[in-house]
């Protein structure tokens, strides 16, 4: 249709001997995914600063990154709420976002404001009263992809997020007004911006999801003030590049994968950005992509200023179960095997929590956090039941690390699947490309597993009647907080796993849990609402924020 309308204009322009600039610009706008769509504005409230972000790990009044800080600790050094008093917690306020959307947002707290997202809405609330301060609604400008949205990143007054139609969007922290937007992802090819970005120095760091759609994953850096592209790392190497020899693909077969959908971590001292990459595709039909399929299902360490690979560790080579690596944190230091080390906890949909040495890149130990059965059996046309299933293991929320209890707390999904290989492997551009089927067991459940962060010993486990996909947050008060798909916000004793407090939010919880101290009171913000229809049953819920504190504080 577009060509039919454009042709007469183009011919007329040629006959007139000119090429109208406006037509050229329109063509550019529809074909150049880097096109600017708005003018560039300047923020009114330039916080948090680079120094604040660098010190986010010890900041008690803010929650400045999706997973709290660059190391992805999911730990706040606040001790007002403890195992001794958590039973007295009570809700302080709530906020209903009011739109029909999935709700997986990781809230950010900065300067007394709580920032949340749904598919279309970005909202700022008073972090103590839940009263709205501003609200921005994005209207999609083209093809949309997956609607999941996992939150914003903030720096220097910019609030940055991805949109459902592939734009990077920057809002003013003070007013919620749009500063700029850029289309950076090709939603027609199946790219989807669902992950929370990270901001470091003047760079926004983000990549698209969409491995199931056979996109070629990438990690990109974009200038904070304008959205200009600075560098891009292709997770699937081009022919002839290092790693391309790990893909043996028959002629005519489309392959892809290695996309991103979860928060990254950063070691500012080393200048290294860590990303968890996802499965190769076609997901189940490994026969058409023999080899390890680099850099899928890997921990990838990039020079944050250039996007060049510093090192990588592939954890699930030649995957045929959609067992993404999803987590590249927390980063922490400590002694393992008698040696002081720089460590990384990493986990994924294969149901294993692993701890890596960030210098040797060796896996020092691992612990199963879900049922693991039949993991090595090949996927065949008659069906292979395996655990974790295609939506099992550690999903979009990963481990929290508590330096006091010296434990990692990991949420996970137990949901086995029968994988079946198709006779026909058919690629429909931009659409699911599995090369087979995955049928879920009728029963599913979840686990919260506490593991010694320096030995891998399992210290305690909590078994939930539903998959556990909500964020886990731990504190200097020795507590561990999370939400369940049952709707319960739950507080555990971090040392024993004892259930200290429960509150039914009325809808499933698969989003973030942030804690912060303002005016001498420790608050806990919990995101309640359907993570996506996969995870809900009779009660889908609606995007709602709940804030808790101890009464009388």
């Amino acid at each position: 249709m577009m060509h039919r309308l454009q042709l007469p204009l183009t011919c007329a322009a040629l006959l007139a001997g000119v090429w109208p600039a406006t037509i050229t610009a329109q063509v550019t706008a529809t074909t150049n995914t880097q096109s600017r769509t708005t003018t560039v504005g300047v923020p009114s409230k330039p916080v948090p600063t680079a120094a604040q972000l660098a010190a986010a790990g010890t900041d008690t009044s803010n929650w400045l990154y999706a997973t709290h800080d660059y190391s992805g600790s999911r730990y706040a050094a606040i001790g007002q709420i403890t195992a001794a008093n958590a039973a007295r917690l009570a809700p302080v306020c709530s906020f209903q976002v009011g739109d029909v959307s999935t709700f997986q947002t990781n809230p950010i707290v900065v300067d007394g404001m709580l920032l949340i997202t749904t598919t279309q809405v970005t909202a700022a609330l008073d972090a103590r009263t839940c009263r709205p301060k501003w609200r921005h609604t994005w209207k999609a400008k083209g093809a949309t992809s997956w609607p999941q949205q996992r939150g914003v990143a903030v720096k220097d007054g910019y609030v940055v997020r991805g949109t459902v139609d592939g734009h990077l969007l920057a809002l003013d922290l003070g007013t919620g007004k749009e500063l700029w937007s850029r289309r950076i992802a090709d939603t027609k090819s199946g790219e989807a911006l669902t992950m929370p970005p990270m901001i470091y120095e003047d760079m926004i760091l983000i990549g698209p999801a969409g491995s199931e759609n056979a996109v070629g994953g990438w990690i990109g850096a974009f200038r904070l003030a304008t959205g200009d592209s600075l560098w891009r790392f292709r997770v699937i190497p081009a022919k002839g590049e290092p790693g391309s020899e790990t893909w043996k693909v028959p002629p005519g077969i489309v392959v892809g994968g290695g996309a991103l959908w979860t928060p990254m971590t950063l070691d500012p001292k080393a200048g290294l950005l860590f990303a968890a990459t996802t499965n190769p595709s076609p997901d189940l039909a490994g026969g058409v992509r023999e080899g390890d399929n680099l850099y899928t299902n890997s921990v990838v360490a990039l020079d944050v200023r250039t996007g060049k690979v510093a090192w990588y560790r592939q954890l699930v080579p030649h995957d045929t179960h959609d067992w993404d690596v999803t987590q590249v944190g927390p980063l922490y230091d400590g002694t393992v095997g008698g040696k002081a080390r720089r460590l990384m906890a990493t986990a994924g949909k294969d149901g294993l929590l692993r701890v890596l040495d960030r210098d040797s890149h060796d896996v020092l130990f691992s612990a199963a956090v879900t049922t693991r059965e039949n993991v090595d059996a090949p996927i065949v046309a008659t069906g292979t039941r395996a655990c974790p299933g295609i939506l099992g293991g550690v999903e979009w929320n990963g481990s929290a690390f508590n330096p006091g209890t010296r434990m990692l707390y990991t949420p996970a999904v137990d949901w086995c699947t029968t994988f079946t290989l198709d006779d026909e492997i058919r690629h429909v551009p931009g659409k699911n490309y599995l090369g087979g089927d995955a049928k879920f067991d009728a029963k599913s459940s979840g686990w919260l597993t506490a593991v010694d962060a320096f030995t891998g010993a399992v210290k305690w486990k909590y078994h939930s009647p539903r998959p556990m996909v909500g964020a886990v947050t731990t504190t200097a008060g020795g507590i561990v907080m999370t939400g369940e798909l049952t709707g319960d916000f739950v507080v555990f004793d971090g040392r024993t796993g004892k259930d200290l407090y429960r509150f039914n939010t009325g809808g499933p919880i698969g989003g973030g849990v942030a804690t912060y101290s303002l005016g001498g009171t420790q608050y806990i913000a919990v995101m309640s609402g359907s993570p996506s229809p996969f995870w809900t049953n009779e009660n889908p819920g609606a995007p709602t924020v709940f804030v808790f504190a101890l009464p009388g504080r």
Partner: protein
Amino acid sequence: MSRTERHAAITVATSVMLLFAVAWRAPEPPTPALYTRAQAERGRVQYDAQCADCHGAKLEGGNSTPLAGDAFFESWSRAELSLDDFYYIVRKTMPKETPGTLTREQYIDVVAFILQQNGFPEGDTELRPDPAILKAVRIERPAPRDTSVLPTATR
């Protein structure tokens, strides 16, 4: 008229003719009627039971991708995609937790319902899961009804 002027006049006339020739296009052929109302109604029953939770009661895509309107055509109205591709994706990947568990007839009924909701005209023949038929159909926004055949009085 000098020779140069005559050449110029011919050039201009040719250009104008060319311009009109290129700018003129035949009326859109009517979008073929691919399914029946009864089939779409059967599809609606399946859709409400299997699809509406994610894709929305009005196919607006509340918690998943939209199946109607601009977003649907943005996604599917492409030269390399046919109705057979759409049918393939529906039957291979849906319903999300139990893909492939409907019969082929049930899947094609759902496709008929989605076509109906996107303005494709109803007809007297049911849509069948026949690749030869489905591959020949592109998912383009249906052409508006040709009003030139209507009596003048109704205009």
